[in-house]
């Protein structure tokens, strides 16, 4: 575990600041909920994709909050990974959306409902 204390630059601190973390986590929950609702209600594939991005960032925010709570850099580190993966995934997902659009000339996810078979 990489801690600020072990790096020697900052004096060790006790896990504290309960007010801050509650606010930050609440924000994360709100973000996730918005993303989830957006994903569930929208049929446009681009908007669905944007909603998933929102849920992603909610998770990233929660990481930052917990990292801060434990004075641990691992949370921050994970965010960097999440951003990287999100960037790659955005490129892939948008590419897929473009391909799907070319097939059916529509962005609606309902057009692909026959995949259930």
């Amino acid at each position, binding site marked *: 575990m990489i801690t600020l204390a072990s790096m020697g630059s900052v004096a060790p601190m006790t896990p504290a600041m309960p007010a801050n973390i509650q606010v930050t986590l609440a924000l994360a929950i709100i973000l996730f909920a918005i993303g*989830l609702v957006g*994903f*569930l*209600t929208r049929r446009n594939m681009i908007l*669905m994709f944007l909603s998933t991005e929102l849920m992603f960032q909610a998770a990233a925010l929660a990481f930052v909050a917990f990292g801060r709570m434990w004075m641990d850099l691992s949370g921050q580190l994970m965010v960097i990974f999440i951003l990287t993966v999100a960037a790659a995934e955005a490129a892939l997902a948008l590419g897929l959306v473009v391909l799907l659009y070319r097939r059916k000339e529509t962005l609606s*996810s*309902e057009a692909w*409902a*026959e995949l259930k078979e």
Partner: protein
Amino acid sequence: MSTVAIIALASAFVTHATAHTPTASMEPALLTTLALALGDGAQAVADGHVADAAHAVHATSGYADVGPLHFVKAVANTDFAWLKWMLLAPLVSVILCGAMAMFKVKGRLPALFTVATFGLSTAMAIALYFQFGPTLFATHAPLTVPFMDWLSLTWGPGPFQSFTANLGFYIDGISMLWMLFVTVLATLIALYASEYMESDLKAGYARFFFAVSLFVTSMLILVMSDNLVGLYLGWEGVGLCSYMLIGYYATQPGATAAAKKAFIMNRIGDLGLALAIFLIWTNYGTVQYDSLFQAIAGSTSEAVQGGWSKAAIPFLLLLAVCGKSAQGPLFTWLPDAMWGPTPVSALIHAATMVTAGIYLLARMAPFYTVQAIGPEWAETALLTVGWIGCFTAFIGATIACGQFDYKRVFAYSTISSLGYMVMGLGVGTAFGGVYYVFTHAWFKALLFLTAGAVMHGMAGQVDFRKLGGLLRVPGFRLTMICMLLGCLWLATAPFSAAAESKDIILLTALTSNVQQVQWMGWIGVLTAGITAYYAFRVWFRLALGPVKIEPGADQHADHGHDDHAGHADHAHSGADAHAGHGAAHGGGFHPHAPGFRISLVLTLLAIGSVLAGLPSYLAHSQGFNWIQRFVQNSSAWMRAGNSEEHGQILGRDAHSTLFVIATSVVVAGFLLAWILHAKNRALGDRLRASMLNTTGLKWIPLGSEHGWYVDQFYNAIIGVPAWLGAQLLAFTDRFVIDGVIVAAIGRFPGFVARVFQPLYTGTVQSYALTMAGGIGLIVAWVVWVWLSGGAS
């Protein structure tokens, strides 16, 4: 196995039947039956005093019990380490010919290698005889030579906690004798084959000599090995090679079927040998001959323990003999083995494979003694051997009378002759049996090779009704004279080598004090007459009369009429020596006379056949028989005793009486053949035709021609049920296993999926909602736990 058991029972029954004395009243007779049912000796009861059953058998026969066994411990001598080259020489030929077959090398090299290495082995066998023979005859001690470690396992210090079967040699009289005639005859046959197989130069020449070399290597392993596992290795080796050689013309369905038949029939026998070896190990803790024979010689009949597991050994060995030597119930593979090239027939029938069974019987003779299995079983085992041999000799001879294919006549004559040898060992004269093996090897090789020469020259014609007067066809005189000699020897003409040896068997049987054995002897005498008839039936038809040549199908092949699916050697046709006269279809056919190598081999074999009688002729002046010395210094002689007793036949001197009887029977057979097949052939043909037209007699010519329908019988009791079983299993597989079980397992997930499939709407959001719901449930559960936990 069941057949052997039935014959054993039958012989036990006959023992009982003959044991009655005229004075025996009704009550003892009943008692006898009871005693028989209990497996006791019958004589004791019939005589009126209920004695110990074991003693009863002793008293009646003295046939199974011959007193203490003659055992001399083997002496190890590494001076004879060169013996390994006797094995390795043909093995070199195996490797070279195998490589040439693999890389499709054309040319005569394979024959050269084979003949040269066989010649080398022959030279070594002769050298062994001169170096070791005198020692053996003087000290009676067999020779053991270690060669190579093979199987040597130890898992404890006790007597039954180690297993040794190394590649080593055990040389006594019979192995030396077998080595001598196997190598000499194999060399001659390979030389003959080098010319005979030339038509196949472009195809299977190397493959043929590969199999022949492996055959001889296996046979040498079989006779030289110092333990039963090594013998088994060679035993299986010759079985495999016979399969390869009988099925040599692999493009012909008949040849492959015959090869499979031979292999399967032999497997039945091999099972007996394998089981016998297992039982020998469990009873004696060793498979080495020397320690085995020592153990048996050291025990007494009263101390025999082990019950059925010991008593089964001789019967299982006999089953093995029946397979390999074409005896009793398992003989049907041998006539079909004629599909192989003729030199192979000579090799299988005369020198090697079939004599392996006789070798096994002679080698394992100590297992047929009271010391090994107790008096009750020893007598039954020996009588079973005798009856199987006698029965086979008779059946083989009767079938040979009805065949029109001269090669098949000789095949059945081999079955018959092997029957005599087995009978010889069964009636207690190992010497007679082995001597007949020796003489038979020569004249039977000669007969097959003359038959091959005729076939080779007549474009594969094997039906003697379509040939005639060959004695007057240029180039065939030598062949026909050699065949005459072979037929005389086969018919046991008086003073011939064959008669000298066969008469020992008949003499022993007829002078026996066991009634059953005397019956075997009389059946043997009758069979000798039948043998004389069928041997000369072939020769008179082939050699005498007007010249008649209807060539076989081989030359038709030159014209592309390959419609004849007949006999084996037809495959060698194409661009062979017949091509020159291929254009002369029908009337203009010129027989292809045998060349130098074939004539040379025939001459040498004829000389060998004559000389094979020499040991017997010289015995009068020398005082000993050359062959007898081999037998007397081998495990076959451990149960010697009464085998050379000369009693009386029909109350007269045994020797002269047998000579008169045997000679008159043989002459009668000869005269019958002469009348029906030389002097007045029309009469012979009319006789056959009228027999075929008479309802009551029809079965004789028909049954004889079709081998008494044994093949059909086996097909009915084994082939047809097996076919029905296969159909049943196929039905089960197709409809029960595939149709019900496999299909059910395969379709079950499909059915389940159909049930839940409606839940899948295809809308991504619905799946996401399910997931969200799941998360919601988990969260709710966590919160509930937290709340309730927090409350406490």
